[in-house]
């Protein structure tokens, strides 16, 4: 019997107190296309970093073709074994295809100059060998995303590796490009290349893969031939068995509450006409994988999406999707996806960050009375339990959880009628996550309508209902009491 191309035997990897990988054993047979799936935090990225030699396992063994993996740090040896194509391009845009393939390994002329003819010939030979019809003299910047990914795959193969890891290659692709990429992947497979395919789109697993391994909470749950594993069984493996419906604590009386957020026919970007309505005191989820359009919808409501159109009103006041101030004044509080990118000015104090949305209310003629500002800030800090040495501490010195709460404070400072949160619990620890969701719950009890954009089941659990977006449209509106499996299937776009 042939040795597996790559094998992990009983590997463990811990980060602090959390086990990222817990005694994982799995093998990839020669020539197969093997899918690795799991929810966020299941351990996929960790496993990839172990298989590519970027990190060392705490214990356990990695084998290639039955032989022990190269020593940690010997990049050249690792590269000849395994290659990884990441979702973020590692291509130099202004270089030609040939230059990118042989980046920093250019054939030399005598005297040290680059042998350009030889470079092009070698690149062409590679293209012919793998049946990829790219012009080696084209600039990478002129190519489409999936063509650039092909450059990366060819570069990987040029190191001698016949095992390629594709880390969410389709995350930034549209369907036609995905089809073209898949055609190439199939021909590479026919030529004997083994692939490990990581994807959030389960349908793709069925389209291109032979075998699938499911990770959950750092453990390998199962490995199975794709053809024998139904979609229900696959989702069940990913989520674990949650047979009983999710308990719904707060009983929300729809009829008693007026509609406060009314968004009609929101479109633009990849969003193709989405309408949604929230009532006061209602907690609603907006679920969808990256690229489904959930972000754009949320940003349109917050006035941060100039590319979006739609009729959005909050309590009768119109929100212009391109004007932040219109959203803030209409009563929208916004917690953006990335707190470092859009949430905080790290060099400024907690007080200044928390009151940034109400800087027009803190004094006369636009002057800011620091006593008033600090009083407001301290009240918010107490309410949200923000731990800092004082209101004057620069927010950059706080922990991730407290930073995130400061962003929430900024959103709540104006007592919004609608609170929109995008991936609010990303990158915060478990404890902060809990308190954050409690704060959201409290805001909702005080009558604020809350829209949570997330694909994390934990964030969506307390929601009164969940809109599911797939491909820029609402594909389902699920009332509280859903099964995790059902929701995940809708989010991943594999529902029957």
């Amino acid at each position, binding site marked *: 019997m042939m040795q597996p191309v790559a094998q992990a035997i009983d590997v463990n990897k811990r980060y602090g107190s959390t086990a990222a990988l817990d005694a994982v054993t799995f093998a990839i047979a020669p020539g197969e296309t093997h899918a690795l799936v799991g929810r966020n935090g299941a351990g996929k990225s960790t496993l990839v970093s172990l298989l590519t030699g970027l990190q060392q396992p705490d214990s356990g063994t990695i084998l290639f073709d039955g032989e022990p993996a190269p020593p940690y740090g010997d990049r050249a040896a690792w590269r000849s074994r395994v290659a990884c194509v990441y979702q973020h391009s590692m291509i130099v845009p202004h270089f030609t295809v040939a230059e990118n393939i042989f980046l920093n390994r250019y054939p030399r002329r005598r005297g040290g100059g680059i042998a350009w003819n030889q470079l092009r010939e070698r690149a062409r030979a590679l293209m012919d060998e793998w049946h990829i019809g790219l012009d080696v003299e084209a600039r990478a910047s002129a190519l489409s995303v999936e063509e650039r990914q092909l450059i990366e795959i060819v570069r990987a193969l040029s190191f001698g590796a016949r095992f390629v890891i594709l880390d969410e290659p389709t995350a930034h692709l549209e369907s036609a490009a995905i089809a073209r990429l898949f055609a190439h992947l199939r021909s590479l497979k026919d030529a004997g290349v083994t692939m490990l395919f990581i994807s959030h789109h389960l349908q793709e697993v069925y389209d291109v893969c032979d075998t699938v391994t499911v990770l959950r909470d750092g453990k390998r749950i199962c490995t199975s031939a794709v053809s024998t594993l139904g979609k229900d069984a696959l989702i069940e493996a990913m989520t674990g068995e949650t047979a009983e419906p999710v308990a719904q604590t707060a009983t929300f009386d729809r009829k008693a509450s007026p509609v406060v957020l009314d968004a009609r026919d929101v479109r633009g970007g990849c969003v193709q006409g989405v309408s949604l309505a929230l009532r006061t005191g209602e907690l609603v989820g907006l679920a969808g994988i990256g690229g489904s359009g959930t972000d754009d919808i949320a940003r349109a409501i917050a006035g941060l999406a100039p590319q979006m159109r739609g009729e959005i009103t909050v309590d009768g006041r119109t929100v212009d999707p391109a004007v932040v101030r219109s959203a803030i004044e209409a009563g929208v509080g916004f917690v953006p996806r990335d707190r470092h990118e859009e949430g905080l000015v790290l060099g400024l104090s907690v007080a200044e960050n928390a009151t940034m*949305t109400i800087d027009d209310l803190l004094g006369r003629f636009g002057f800011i009375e620091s006593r008033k500002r600090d009083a407001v800030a301290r009240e918010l800090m107490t309410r949200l339990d923000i731990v800092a040495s004082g209101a004057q501490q620069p927010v950059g010195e706080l922990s991730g959880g407290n930073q995130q709460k400061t962003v929430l404070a900024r959103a709540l400072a104006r007592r919004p009628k609608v609170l929109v949160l995008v991936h609010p619990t990303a990158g915060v620890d478990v404890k902060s996550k809990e308190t954050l969701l409690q704060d959201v719950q409290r805001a909702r009890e005080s009558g604020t309508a809350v829209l949570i954009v997330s694909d994390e089941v934990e964030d969506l659990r307390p929601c009164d209902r969940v809109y599911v977006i797939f491909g820029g449209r609402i594909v389902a509106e699920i009332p509280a009491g859903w099964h995790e499996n059902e929701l995940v299937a809708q989010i991943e776009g594999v529902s029957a």
Partner: protein
Amino acid sequence: MARERVGGANRRRFGLASVREAALLPVLVLLLVVGAFVNGRFLSSANLIDILGASSALALVVLAESLILISGKFDLSLESTVGLAPAVGVLLVASQADRGWGVHVPVWLGFLCILLTGAIVGAINGTLVVKLRLNAFIVTLAMLIVLRGLLVGVTKGNTLFSVPDAYLYLGAQTAAGVPVSVWLAIAIFIAAGVLLGHHRLGRAIYAIGGNRQAARAAGINVDAISFGVFVAGGVLASLAGLILAGRLGAVSANQGNGMIFTVFAAAVIGGVSLEGGKGTVLGAATGVLLLGVVDNLLTLAQVQTFWIQAIYGVIILLALALARVTSGREE
């Protein structure tokens, strides 16, 4: 990353950072003491007032640059505005016999046109950098060259001596024994300090420089304010140009030439960050005074002018090293 740094180490860095604001004051005092030994006249009130007077034009340009730097942008062309704006003002007023345009604009309107010239230059820079999102370094470098060329063009390379008396007032007159320009600079610095520290516009400038996207998401009109800062910078530079013209009683074709290096030096020595979001008016003022004192000392010590540039450069490097040590960050 922040999580690990909370606590002792971090508080220490914060403590030193506030020391940084005052770090230049001891240096300034030290220089004054050294100065007293170098030359007996140094500490005389006449000499000290002289230093202030000589620094006031530079101070306004440094303030302009500081505002723009705090907002996270950059303007090299301020030095050209310092020359061009007063030249335009003189040309509009002066007769053709005095090398003017002979349009005989009233002096008060000429004065407004000086400020307007600065505002227009700022508006062009603002449009290119903020609205069209071009690189501020390249845009304002090109603008520096264009305006320099315009100044040489409109003056035909000559020095304009027919500066109206009203224009001389700021630079040449004194009030209570101190040049009017110094009073003006002090007033503007206080106003700017209050604005930056206690007005939403000022705080917005810090927020924009610290994180443009976060500022936008918080409802701050980032583009309008950023644009406004360029315009304000241009106006301040034109006012500085008028002060210089008053001090010299003339506008030469190379007024302001090379000034931008000193401007950046003073701002950076004063703790204004080139990365945006950081810096104070007090810091900028200290930076200006430090350079002013050094300049005066070198002159009094009769250091040959050939060496002054090199000594200036060394002082700037020392100040940067000091900033690195005290704030733990590169500027």
